């Protein structure tokens, strides 16, 4: 018997991976350019996860597994984020690579702190 949570994670993961990979395919990064797709997708997924977990803090369950662990987890990517920084360095854009790493991490944690604070104050949404 496969637990429901695992099915929710798998379906959400498939959708998240398709959206991210599809967007990268639609708007591929040119050499020496800021990786806009991964950058924005990572920050948007981070905001959605923080909001979801904060709002449903008292109601964990299949919604968190599906949208949180599955969709947001797979929509956002650590490996793509790192390889793009390495590729930028290979393309001679050292400062851009450093800025990309720093901006993603800095904005990511700021968004998480801000959204978590707001959603924890709000009434839980079921």
């Amino acid at each position, binding site marked *: 018997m496969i637990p429901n949570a695992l099915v929710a994670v798998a379906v959400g993961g498939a959708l998240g991976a398709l959206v991210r990979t599809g967007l990268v395919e639609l708007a591929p990064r040119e050499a020496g350019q800021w990786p806009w797709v991964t950058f924005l997708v990572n920050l948007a997924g981070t905001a959605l996860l923080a909001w979801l977990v904060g709002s449903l803090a008292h109601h964990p369950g299949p919604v968190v597994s599906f949208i949180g*662990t599955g969709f947001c987890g797979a929509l956002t990517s650590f490996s793509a984020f790192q390889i793009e920084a390495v590729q930028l360095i290979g393309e001679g854009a050292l400062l851009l690579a450093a800025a990309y790493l720093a901006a993603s991490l800095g904005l990511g944690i700021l968004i998480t702190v801000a959204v978590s604070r707001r959603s924890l104050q709000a009434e839980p949404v079921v």
Partner: protein
Amino acid sequence: MTPWVWLAVGGCGAVGAMVRFGAAHVTGPGRTHLGTLAVNLVGAFALGVIVGAGSSHRVLLIVGGGLLGATTTFSTWMLESHRLGHDGRRGHAVANLVGSLVAGFALTVVGWWLGRSLA
């Protein structure tokens, strides 16, 4: 790209998300960030290898975008780091953020170099 490639991206994304979910379960409550760290580092290294090896566009989409993209995560990394700080484990939070970033970058470079050497 044929529909089969996108079916594979979705299928591999599902597998990747389940692997990540499993890793967080193995490390257990209060330590899920260690499971996330493990999959993020392994995934970053593996993506370095396949990119360094000059893999085809199809492999990059399915294995890179689908499997490794979904196994690794940015959002959970941020949320778990925030939680560590929120629980009074500030040092752990900073270590999880900076440690993941530095180790992930280093492993991606090593993977990329290894992939290029093997190709």
